[in-house]
C-alpha cells in the first residue's frame, strides 16, 4: 500500500514537472507554440486510443469524438453564446462521452477487425451527416472564436495563455489517466488483450470494461477536439474523416501504449517528422510517414516511450 501511494505521488510529481518543462519550452520557442498545442490536442485523442489499444482494440473511428468535441464547442459558441473556456471544454468532453457511451453499448460486443470496421463506419456516418448539413457550414465548416476564461477577465485569450491552458489540461489528463491505469479496472485492459476468456472466468465483465474504456476514450478525444477548435479556429467535417482517426492511431503506435505520456511524445514526434518531411521531401512525406510507421512496428514495438524509458533508466543508473 505504501509503495503504491508513493508511486502515486511520484506520478503527480512527474506529470507536474513534465507540464512545467513543456510550458517553459513553449514560451521559449514561441514559434513552435502553435504546432505543440495542436500536437497536444491530438495527443489527447491518441491517449484515448491508448486505453483501447491496451484492451487489444483498434478503433478507426476516434475522429468521431474529436469532431464531436470540436462541434460541441463551435455550436455552443454560436447558438448558446457561451464564450468561457471552462464550460465549453466541459461540454466538449461530456457530449463526446455521451455519444461514446451510446455507441459503446453496441461496440462492446465486437472485437478485432469488426470493432475496427464498425468504429470506422460510425465516424464516416457522422462525416456524411455533417457534410450534408448546410446550417453547420457543410463541408466548409465554420470558424470558432478564441474563448475567454473566467479567471482572466480580459476577453479573448492570447495564444500564449491558450498554450499554457492546453499544457495544464494535458498535464492533468496525464495524471488522471496514469492513476486510472493503476486501478484494478485500469489494469484489466492488458489482461483482456491477452485473454478475455480468463478475465470472464475470474468474474469480470469484458464488455463492461470495454464500454467504460471506450467512453473514457471518447471523452478524451472530445476534450482534444475542443482544444483543437480553439487553436485552429476553424472546424469542419474532415475531423471525422477516417484518415483523421488513422493519424491518431499512428500517433498512439509511434508513442507507445505503456503509459499516459507516450501518446504526447508520439504526437509531438509526428509533427516534427511531418514538418521535416514537408520541408525536405514535400512530394514524399506520406512515404516518410508510412516507412516510419513500419520501422516503429518492427524495431520499436513499444513505441518511442520505450526509448525514453531506457534512457531514463540508464541515466538514473549513471548519476
Amino acid at each position, binding site marked *: 500500500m505504501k509503495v503504491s501511494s508513493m508511486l502515486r505521488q511520484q506520478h503527480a510529481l512527474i506529470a507536474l514537472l513534465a507540464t512545467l518543462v513543456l510550458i517553459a519550452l513553449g514560451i521559449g520557442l514561441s514559434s513552435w507554440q502553435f504546432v505543440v498545442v495542436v500536437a497536444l490536442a491530438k495527443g489527447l485523442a491518441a491517449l484515448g486510443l491508448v486505453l483501447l489499444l491496451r484492451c487489444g482494440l483498434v478503433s478507426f473511428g476516434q475522429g468521431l469524438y474529436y469532431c464531436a468535441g470540436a462541434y460541441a464547442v463551435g455550436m455552443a459558441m454560436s447558438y448558446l453564446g457561451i464564450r468561457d473556456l471552462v464550460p465549453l471544454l466541459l461540454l466538449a468532453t461530456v457530449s463526446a462521452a455521451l455519444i461514446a457511451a451510446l455507441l459503446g453499448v453496441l461496440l462492446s460486443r465486437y472485437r478485432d477487425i469488426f470493432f475496427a470496421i464498425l468504429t470506422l463506419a460510425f465516424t464516416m456516418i457522422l462525416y456524411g451527416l455533417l457534410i450534408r448539413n*448546410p446550417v453547420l457550414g457543410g463541408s466548409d465548416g465554420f470558424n470558432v472564436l478564441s474563448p475567454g476564461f473566467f479567471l482572466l477577465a480580459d476577453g479573448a485569450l492570447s495564444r500564449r495563455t491558450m498554450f499554457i491552458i492546453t499544457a495544464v489540461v494535458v498535464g492533468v489528463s496525464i495524471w488522471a489517466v496514469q492513476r486510472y491505469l493503476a486501478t484494478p479496472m485500469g489494469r484489466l485492459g492488458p489482461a483482456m488483450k491477452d485473454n478475455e476468456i480468463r478475465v470472464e472466468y475470474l468474474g469480470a465483465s469484458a464488455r463492461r470494461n470495454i464500454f467504460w474504456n471506450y467512453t473514457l476514450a471518447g471523452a478524451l478525444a472530445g476534450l482534444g477536439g475542443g482544444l483543437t477548435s480553439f487553436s485552429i479556429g476553424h472546424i469542419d467535417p474532415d475531423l471525422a474523416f477516417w484518415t483523421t482517426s488513422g493519424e491518431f492511431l499512428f500517433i498512439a503506435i509511434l508513442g507507445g501504449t505503456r503509459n499516459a505520456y507516450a501518446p504526447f511524445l508520439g504526437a509531438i514526434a509526428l509533427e516534427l517528422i511531418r514538418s521535416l518531411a514537408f520541408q525536405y521531401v514535400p512530394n514524399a512525406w506520406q512515404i516518410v510517414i508510412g516507412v516510419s510507421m513500419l520501422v516503429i512496428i518492427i524495431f520499436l514495438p513499444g513505441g518511442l516511450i520505450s526509448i525514453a524509458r531506457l534512457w531514463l533508466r540508464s541515466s538514473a543508473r549513471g548519476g
Partner: protein
Amino acid sequence: MSHQIKVISAAVAVALFALGSTAQADEKPIKVGIVTFMSGAAAGPFGVPARHGAEVLFEELNAGKVPAPYDSVGFGGTPLEFVYIDESGGTSQQVTEFRNMVDRAGVDMVIGYTSSGNCLAIAPVAEELKTLTMLYDCGTPRIFEDDTHHYVFRPVAHGTMDNVGAAMYAVDQKPNLETYAGINQNYAWGQDSWRDFEGALKQLKPDVKLTTSQMPKLGAGQYNAEISAIMASNPDILHSSFYGGDLEGLIVQAQPRGMMEHVPTILTTGETITHDNKIKIPDGTIIGARGPHGVFAPDSELNTWFRNAYRDQIKGDPWYPSYKMAQTILGTKAAYEKAKADNGGKAPNTEQIIAAFKGLTFVSPSGEVKMALGNGHQAVQEVVYGTAKNVDGKLTFEHVKRYPSEVVTPPEGVKSEDWIKNGMKH
C-alpha cells in the same frame, strides 16, 4: 552560460538588423507564400495550372517583361521571392502551414487557396498574424458576407455569379425551358453551386420544374446510375459544378450513352477540360470559366503577353485558374505600387498597401477588375458562358455571352443567398 548566449545572440541580432536596414534596404526581395493544391482531387484542374500561372508571373515580373502598367520589376522595383506550399491536408494542416510561413519562413504576404474551407479557416489567422493575404480562387461568398476582414482580400469574383450567370444563360439560350436537373458533388462546393443555380433559375422562370437532383459524393467515380436517372427524367437542361477527375469521369461515362447530346449540360468549371484535347466535349455543352478567364479572356495586350509567356514557359495553354492566379498577383502589384507612390516612393508598410488595395480598380489579362464588395476587399467581375461547337476537330464557342458584374453579383451589404431569394434586384 545561458546569460552569455543571450548576450551574444542579442548582439548578432542587432548586427543583422543593422545590416538589413542599411546595406540591403532595397535588395531584400518581397517574400510571397503561394498556396495551391499540389495533390488531391483539386490539384490537376486547379492547383497545378494556378501554380504554373504563378511561376510564369514570377519569371516575367522579376525580369520586368510584363507590359504596362505592370512593367516595373517585381513589386514597385523590388524583386519577388515565391515560396510554394501544397494546399492539401485539410484546414488544420493549412492553418499550421500558414503560421509556419509567417512565423518561421518569414513571408511578407500570402497568395492562394482554392478550397472555401481553407479560405474560411485562414482568414481569421491572417487577421491575428496581421499578414496580408490574397485569396485567388475559392468561391464561397461567406468570407466577406459573414465577416469583415482587414488583412484579407479576394481580387477575383466569388462563386455566386457563376451559377446566377449559368441560370441566365440557360434562360437566354432556351426561352422555352420547362424542366431542369442537376448533378453536383455532395459537399459545400456542389451544394452551394446547386442552391444558387436553382434559386436563380426559379427567379427567372418561376414555373420551371425539377426532374432530378443528383448529389454523388466527391470522388465517387462511377456515375452510370446517375446518368440513367438523369436521362430517364429527360430534363431540358442539366447543371453541373463537377470539376477535375469527377467531371472527366462523368463525361467519359456519359459519352457512349449520349447523355450530353441529349440533354444540354452546363458545366460551370468546364473551361478546365477544354484544353489539350484529352476529352471530347459534345456540341451544345455550355461552358463556364468562373469569370472572363481562360478561353473567354478578352483580347488585350496583357492577355496576349500572358498567353504567350505561359506557352513559352509551360508548354500549353493557360487555364482559367492560371488567369485567376495572374489576376491576383497583378492586383496585389497594383495595390503595392499605388501604396508606394502614395508613400512618396518609399516601400509601403502593410497598412499602406491595405489602404491602397481597398476599392482599387485594376486591369488583368482577364480585363478590368473592381474591388467593389466586402468594404473594398472583394472583387467583382463579369461572368462569361459559351456553347461548345466542334469545327473540324477543333473546339470553338458560339453564343458567347458576357454578363456584367452588376447583373450577376449582389450589391454591397446584401448576402448572396438573400439576394437570389429576393429576386436578384439592384
